């Protein structure tokens, strides 16, 4: 079994795309796979993107094969365009944004919790299952189109946000393997995929555009999330090479927020005219606003544009209500709301702490992408903020020229006209760049070509309670031992020089687990006794169990940690006995405080 193709899969928050290239050709020619999907009951059409939505049909709808596909009979759910359309009108049966749930460690992502807050009679599914269904659809499509090249035998590159931590990556991989992707699956960070897509489009000319010492900022604002990465241009073996330096935190703010903001603005104008919109009309308004956004944000767009909410019933014209929105007001709303001018020393506003917090996705309370960007550049500079020399945009939001221009202006404000970053010529297709870049990367990995080095994007820490006298009512002080430094390379392992930790035989040992995307100088074994909430973020805890039958005589085994990053970029943490050659892998555990109702 030799692989004939590389498949690049962008499993997006709102859209998924599959690009592929043949390994048998001398030059990579990346193509998009048309994805047949249900657009209405019993109606299948091919699109280049698969909306990442699942519609869970009731049993009365599912009969009669209305949701069947060429490769799947007796379906009681639908994935793709039909599900996206249903999201508006049947929200209790439609799953969306599964990917944002996947990295939300306050819920148990194996439990059937989606659609969130749906009534019990709906057969809910877990975020992992939803992701698996999108991938199964892509695999089914591929195997119908290329029956002689089964997915399990091809090279597959699946993209994840750079901001995904180790447990979210693990869950993504789990969904991918369950769907039928091969074990040799490689996970690639999305901003890196965007860079590969640019490299593929630029060819060898990239070496003339970038030089040693340059820093490239990838600013990827997708539908639901904003993902930032810094890539440095360095000399590697006498050649220009790329190295990923830093990634940003997971920010739940993106193009969907902008559409919603515009819809709220428009709903306000309707209200002034005395028109109250019902829920169906509100959703329709949201869609109209998405359409209007691009032309309103074009530099030469019309001064005024009408936004209409079409009549619901067969009386289309009679039921339609419309308003005029002012281009300037909209520009003000979106540009100032999401890309306001700010100082590079500004920080995003934090959510005010309150006793109650609604569970659900932790959307950003500050929607200003520029302030998140400022905080990111500050966090990764040695003295003062990093001043990137080049800028690459990705994500559908940057189709709007007004937003691109504003972001460039903000950089000029921060760093001055002369040293503001230079925008890399934008030859790539913003909607499909990530999947295309992933396929190109897979080709370069097999056949040779420039690769971005990086290693782990974050440092990881295990929380250890200090021994000492217990004070009633006070938890024992916690220390964090660095086990994985930032930038640990693929295919390496290391021993953490630390005190021995005793694992009790026959009982599960739980460790709290933390990550940091900013502490780049910590080495394995370094112990932190205090840290701020922004520096270290707690993620899913880890668990190891030494079963009593492993012929261990003592009641407990002294161990040290041994982290390993596999060739495929997966992080593994092992406990290695200091007395014997026993070793146990730590697994992410279901959080005890996981909130499922």
């Amino acid at each position, binding site marked *: *079994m030799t692989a004939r193709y590389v498949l690049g899969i962008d499993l997006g928050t709102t859209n998924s795309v599959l690009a592929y290239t043949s390994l048998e050709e001398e030059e990579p020619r990346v193509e998009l796979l048309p994805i*047949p999907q249900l*657009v*209405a*009951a*019993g*109606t*299948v*059409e*091919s699109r280049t993107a698969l909306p990442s939505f699942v519609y869970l049909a009731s049993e009365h709808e599912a009969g*009669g*094969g*209305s949701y*069947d596909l060429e490769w*799947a*009979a*007796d379906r009681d759910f639908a994935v793709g365009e039909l599900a996206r359309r249903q999201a508006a009108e049947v929200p209790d049966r439609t799953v969306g944004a599964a990917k944002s749930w996947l990295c939300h460690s306050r819920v148990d992502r194996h439990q059937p919790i989606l659609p969130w807050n749906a009534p019990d009679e709906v057969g809910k599914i877990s975020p992992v299952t939803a992701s*698996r269904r999108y991938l*199964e659809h892509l695999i089914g499509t591929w195997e119908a189109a290329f029956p002689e090249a*089964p997915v*399990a*035998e091809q090279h597959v590159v699946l993209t994840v946000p750079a901001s995904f931590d180790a447990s979210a990556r693990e869950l993504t991989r789990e969904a991918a*393997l*369950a769907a*039928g992707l091969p074990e040799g699956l490689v996970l690639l960070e999305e901003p890196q995929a965007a860079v590969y897509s640019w490299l593929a489009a630029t060819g060898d000319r990239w070496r003339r555009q970038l030089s040693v010492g340059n820093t490239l900022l990838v600013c990827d604002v997708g539908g639901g999330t904003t993902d930032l990465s810094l890539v440095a241009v360095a000399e590697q073996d006498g050649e220009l090479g790329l190295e990923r330096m830093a990634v940003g935190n997971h920010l739940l703010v993106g193009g969907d927020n902008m559409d919603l903001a515009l819809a709220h603005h428009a709903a306000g104008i309707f209200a002034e005219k005395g028109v109250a919109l019902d829920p169906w009309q509100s959703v329709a308004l949201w869609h*109209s606003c998405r*359409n209007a956004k691009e032309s309103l944000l074009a530099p030469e767009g019309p001064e005024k544009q*009408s936004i*209409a909410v*079409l*009549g619901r019933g*067969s*009386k*289309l*014209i*009679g039921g*339609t209500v*419309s308003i005029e929105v002012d281009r300037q007001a909209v520009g003000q709303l979106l540009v100032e709301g999401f890309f306001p001018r700010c100082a590079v020393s500004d920080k995003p506003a934090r959510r005010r702490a309150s006793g109650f917090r609604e569970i659900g996705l932790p959307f950003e309370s500050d929607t200003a992408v520029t302030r998140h960007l400022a905080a990111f550049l500050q966090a990764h500079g040695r003295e003062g903020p990093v001043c990137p020399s080049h800028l690459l945009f990705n994500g559908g939001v940057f189709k709007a020229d007004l937003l691109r221009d504003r972001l460039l202006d903000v950089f000029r404000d921060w760093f001055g006209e002369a040293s503001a970053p230079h925008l890399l010529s934008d030859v790539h297709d913003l909607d499909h760049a990530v999947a295309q870049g992933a396929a190109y990367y897979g080709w370069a990995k097999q056949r040779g070509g420039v690769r971005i080095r990086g290693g782990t994007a974050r440092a990881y820490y295990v929380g250890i309670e200090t021994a000492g006298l217990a004070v009633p009512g006070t938890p024992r002080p916690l220390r964090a031992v660095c086990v994985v430094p930032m930038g640990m390379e693929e295919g390496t392992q290391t021993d953490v020089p630390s005190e021995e930790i005793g694992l009790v035989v026959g009982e599960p040992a739980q460790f709290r687990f933390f990550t940091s995307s900013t502490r780049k100088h910590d080495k394995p074994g370094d112990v932190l006794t205090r840290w701020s909430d922004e520096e270290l973020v707690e993620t899913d805890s880890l668990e190891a169990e030494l079963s009593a039958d492993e012929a261990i005589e003592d009641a407990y085994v002294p161990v040290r940690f041994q982290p390993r990053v596999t060739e495929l970029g997966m992080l593994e943490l092992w406990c290695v006995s200091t007395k014997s050659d026993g070793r146990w892998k730590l697994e992410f555990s279901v959080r005890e405080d996981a909130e499922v109702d």
Partner: protein
Amino acid sequence: MRRIVIALRVFFATLFRAQVAREVERVLSGIGQPTPAEAPRAPKPEPKKPRAPVRSDAVTLLATLQREARFVDFVKEPLDAYSDAQIGAVARDVHRDCGRVLDRLFALQPIVTEEDGTEIDVPAGFDAGRYRLTGNVAGEPPFRGPLRHHGWEATRLELPSWSGSAAAARTVAPVEVELK
């Protein structure tokens, strides 16, 4: 090696996909039974249901235009009661969405690229389906004259496929009922 891979795939697919499990059970129960002589001719299992009647492509196109652009609602509604402004507000949306459907399904392109009014040649042996001559049509081709319309042609034909029932074969838009 290939068989190991297949075996593993079957294992996981059986574990995670109920439908595959049923298929595997069916295949396994058939192992060891003599293969009927005509088996190689029809290796694919017969579908359980008879194949759904095919819907006319014209209905599929109408249904698509209605679903995505409300085309049928727009054309079927009498305009008498409405002002031009009211009609215009709707027409913008219907126009934009119809255009998107036509682009996606047919990728319409002009047949000739010249501007209207420029002199173009009509070759000898032209296809009357592709060129329509007007005015003083006489003499022998090749003809030459000013372009009055550049024509349109579909450079792609990607209509949705349909698998619904005979009863729904002529449905352009389904009845919609909201449950409270």
